[in-house]
Each structure stands twice: as structure tokens, then as C-alpha cells.
């Protein structure tokens, strides 16, 4: 018994406190929220018992279609954000994969928006995405005018249906540098021998990238997509800062906040759990895959 304690004790002492708080504050509180989402608790008063899945059903049967509208916004934002960061991140990494003068300068510039908070960047992007056009044009629209590209002027995030694509622009500005850093690391992680072998075989630069290097970057791409994808599901700060809480740019994470302001705890819990489920459906298989892959190697 004593021997066991000496063997396991110190390790438990180091890791135990963290495991306990995570068990409570991640899994315990998620459990509480799930439980709450199944109850009739729609004001500051105590619960009036269980309601089954009614809170979830009500989200989808709401005559205003608010939740579907939320999900549409989230989908548009996510696709544009993930696509944009991937394209710019990969492009910048490719441009810097060749010996470049002032490489450190370029990298630093591309990456710096990452250090800025979404709240602060929202301040400037709200100004840049001024929806005024023509004589009232401001921000980017007035640049378009100056360049005689007036046909590009648009109402940015106030555009009906597709406005969230504009809302993704600040997020792309902030995170593309991060994805670039991932890809630079990915390129540098590829053994030099592979490039040399391709050169000996007479591969052109295009063939080198297409056939040799890109296939090696699949894991990096997967990480990049996982990171931007889950950030997108959580996106709250940026939207609150650019547009504030309003219908046209509402996503589930903002809807939770709005619902809590009306003390409808059960409904807020149902939205939050739905969001968590969407994340879990992607993340759990990913973590299991990573874990298995590690064991194999």
C-alpha cells in the first residue's frame, strides 16, 4: 500500500488539482447546462420541471425562423472565414518558402493582427465597412471610388442574407497570419531529402509542390481547419464589436447572450448545448484520430 502510494502519489499530486477542476468546470458544468436545457425554466424563478426536448424543438419551430437565420449566418461566416484564412495563409507561406530578403519583416507584418483583440479590431473594421455608398461612401467604399471601382461598393455586413461574408473579413485579417505560420512550419518540417530527390528526378517547381510537398501538408491543413472551424463556432467578440447584438448578424453564440438578458435560462442552455454538439461532432473524432495516429508511430 505504502509502496503504491510512493509510486503513484507524486504524479497524482502534480496532475490531480488540474484534473479535479477540469472535471468540475468542463464536464460538470456542461452536464449542468445539458440538464438545464431539458427543463422549464424560462424566467428568474425556479424550474417548473422537465420539458424533454421541447426547448430544442422550440428553437426550430419559432415562427420568426430566428435560429435557422442564426445557423445560416454561422455557416456563411464559417465557410468564408475558413476558406479565406486557408487561401491567404497558404499563399503567404508559399511566397515566403523561397529565400526572401526581409523575410522576418513580412512574417511579422502578416502575423501582427493576431496580437490584437477582436474588440479592438472591431472598432476599426466597423469604420472600414461603412455601409454608405455614393456620396455617403466611407471606409473601403470610398477607396473603391477613388480607384474608379465604384461597382465594388457594397453594404458589407448590412447586406441581407450574405452580410456575414463581410463580417468574416476582419477575422480573416486577424487569423491568416496564424495559418501562414502553421504552413511555414509545415514546409520546414518536410525532410530536405524529399526536395532534393525531386530535384534530381528533374521535377519542375510546380511538380515539386503539387506532387511532393502538398501531400505532406495534409496534417497541417487539417489542424488549420480544426483551429479556424472551432474559432468560428465560438465567434462572439468580433460580432459584438462590429455590429453589436442585432438580428442581421446574429449567430448562436450571440443568441445565447441575448436570451440570457431575458432570463430564459433553459432556452439559452439549449442553444449553447446545440453549439457544443456541433463542435463535438467534429472535434471528438479528430482527437481520437490524433491519439490513434500517435500510438501507431
Amino acid at each position: 500500500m505504502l509502496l503504491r502510494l510512493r509510486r503513484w502519489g507524486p504524479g497524482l499530486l502534480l496532475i490531480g488539482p488540474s484534473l479535479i477542476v477540469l472535471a468540475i468546470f468542463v464536464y460538470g458544468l456542461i452536464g449542468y447546462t445539458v440538464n438545464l436545457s431539458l427543463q422549464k425554466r424560462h424566467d428568474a424563478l425556479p424550474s417548473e420541471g422537465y420539458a424533454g426536448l421541447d426547448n430544442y424543438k422550440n428553437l426550430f419551430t419559432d415562427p420568426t425562423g430566428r435560429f435557422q437565420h442564426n445557423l445560416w449566418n454561422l455557416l456563411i461566416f464559417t465557410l468564408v472565414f475558413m476558406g479565406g484564412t486557408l487561401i491567404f495563409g497558404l499563399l503567404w507561406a508559399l511566397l515566403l518558402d523561397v529565400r526572401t530578403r526581409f523575410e522576418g519583416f513580412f512574417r511579422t507584418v502578416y502575423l501582427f493582427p493576431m496580437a490584437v483583440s477582436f474588440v479592438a479590431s472591431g472598432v476599426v473594421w466597423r469604420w472600414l465597412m461603412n455601409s454608405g455608398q455614393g456620396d455617403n461612401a466611407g471606409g473601403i467604399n470610398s477607396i473603391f471610388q477613388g480607384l474608379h471601382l465604384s461597382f465594388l461598393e457594397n453594404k458589407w455586413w448590412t447586406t441581407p442574407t450574405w452580410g456575414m461574408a463581410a463580417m468574416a473579413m476582419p477575422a480573416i485579417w486577424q487569423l491568416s497570419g496564424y495559418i501562414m505560420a502553421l504552413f511555414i512550419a509545415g514546409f520546414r518540417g518536410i525532410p530536405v531529402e524529399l526536395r532534393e530527390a525531386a530535384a534530381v528526378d528533374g521535377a519542375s517547381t510546380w511538380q515539386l509542390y503539387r506532387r511532393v510537398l502538398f501531400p505532406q501538408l495534409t496534417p497541417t491543413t487539417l489542424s488549420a481547419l480544426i483551429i479556424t472551424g472551432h474559432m468560428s463556432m465560438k465567434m462572439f467578440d468580433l460580432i459584438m464589436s462590429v455590429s453589436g447584438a442585432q438580428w442581421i448578424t446574429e449567430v448562436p453564440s450571440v443568441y445565447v447572450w441575448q436570451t440570457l438578458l431575458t432570463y430564459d435560462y433553459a432556452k439559452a442552455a439549449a442553444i449553447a448545448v446545440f453549439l457544443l454538439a456541433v463542435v463535438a461532432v467534429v472535434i471528438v473524432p479528430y482527437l481520437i484520430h490524433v491519439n490513434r495516429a500517435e500510438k501507431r508511430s
Partner: protein
Amino acid sequence: MSIDVAAPPIATRPPAAGGRRSGKKGRSPVATTIRYAILLFFVIVVLMPLYVLVVTSFKSGREIGVDGAWNLPTTWTFASWAKAWTALGPSFLRTFELAIPVALISSLLGAANGFVLARWRFPGADVVFTLILFGMFIPYQAVMIPLGQIVQWLGIAHGIPTLIFVHVIYGIPICTLIFRNYYATIVPVEMIEAARIDGAGMLRTFAYLILPISIPSFVVTIIWQFTSSWNDYLFAIFLSSTRNGPITIALNALAGAQSPDYAASMAGALITSLPTLVVYVLLGRWFIGGLMAGSVKS
């Protein structure tokens, strides 16, 4: 394939890099010019919002109209900076009281967890690690409703102490990941074995042998946690107010009004971003390494 640290920071070139790059001589000058042109174009695009922030923050009220919004101020004034500082000053100092303890405490916890998980193959270690990591990905809305209540029940003071507490807890997964990957790939097993043979227990090995060589990971997690707790708005809006909360709350109050004072808001956004930008510029090399360390690579 592994969940591993993509360190070393990309600023340090591997010795082999010279070799691989030398194989790419003889590019056409046209291609090189185009490449630099594209790189510079993106520099301008990326810096554009920063330009707007700086220029607008120095303009006087009359100049912030629509016309010439992109121009430099005709007269430079610090009035908006003064106004922004009046609004943000108290929370600026408070946010240091938040971000510094968060950075230090979560890093220490991450080091302890990472060491145990990397070096101690207890049954179910992988499952435990996966369960810890999942905490990194959850939308915090899913814990937010009971979080306020439990923190109050624990008797932790509202505002900064509460925020320190929650940022430390929800920072454990990422810090654990960074240290675990560092220990799993960088610290030689023989070193720990040697210490064990010399009769050093796990705690002593950790304190005297492992902690001193963990500085690269500490730099990474400290920057990471400092930045994310400084920049956080979600926990702040749920668990604090403008009276006792961090700077993001104060900035949003300043900038979020119906007809905001753009010059003061932009000066405020710059003040808010200054500490993280300084940290980033001074320690950027490690920051980049840290970004990559934070990625779960498969």
C-alpha cells in the same frame, strides 16, 4: 504522426535549410519581382486598418467626417488620446492584474500536467489527455450559465479575481498540451532515468531537473495566456462590469455607443492593443513558435 510541437520557432532556420534552398538558384528576375510585388501588396493591405487607427486617433472632431477620411490629419491633436485614456486608464491597469497572474499560474499548472502526462504512462493516460484537450475546444457558452453561480458560491470576489480563476482553469488544456509536447519530444528519457537512479523522486526531478530546462515552453505559454486573457471579451462580459472588469469591456463601452466618437474609439483601440503588441514585437520569435506549439498536429 503525433500531437507534437512544431517548434523550433520558425525564425531559427534548421541547418539543413541552406542546403535545400541552395538548390533553387537561378530564378528569373521577373518571377522574383512579381513575388516581391505581391508580398508588398499584402503588406499594404494588412497594415491598412492600422493606418486608419493611427491617423483617425490624431484627428480633431471636425475632421472625422466622410470627406478625406483616409487623409492624414491637417492638425494633429492628442485630445482623443486624452479622452480615451480617461475612459480606459483604470481598466488598463486592472487588466495587468488579470493577465500577469493568469499567465504565471496556468503555465505552472501546464508544466506539472505536461510532465506527468509525457513521462508517466499510467493506465488510461491517453484518455485523460484527450479529455483534457477537449476542454480547449468547447464553446464557453456551454459552461457560462452555471459558471457565474459556482464562482459566487465559492466566494471569489467579482471582477478580476473571478476572471483570473476562470482563465486559469480554461487555460489548463492548452498549457498542458504545449508542455506535454515539449517534454515528449525534447527532454531526453535518459536524463530522467539517470535522475531516478540517483534516487530523485518525481517531484524532485520535476522541480530541479525539468523546470529549469522548460524555459522555452514557459515563454510560449506565458505569452499565449497573457494575450488571450488580455484580449478576452466573452468571460469579461459575463463575469464583470465596466466598474471592475478588464479593458475590453471599457473599450466596448467607449466604442459601442450609438454614435461613437471614432477618434477616441480608435485611440482607445490602440491603447488596448499596445501591451499585447509590445509583448508580440519583443518576443515575436517565441510567439510564432508558440502559435505552432498550440496547434494539435496530427
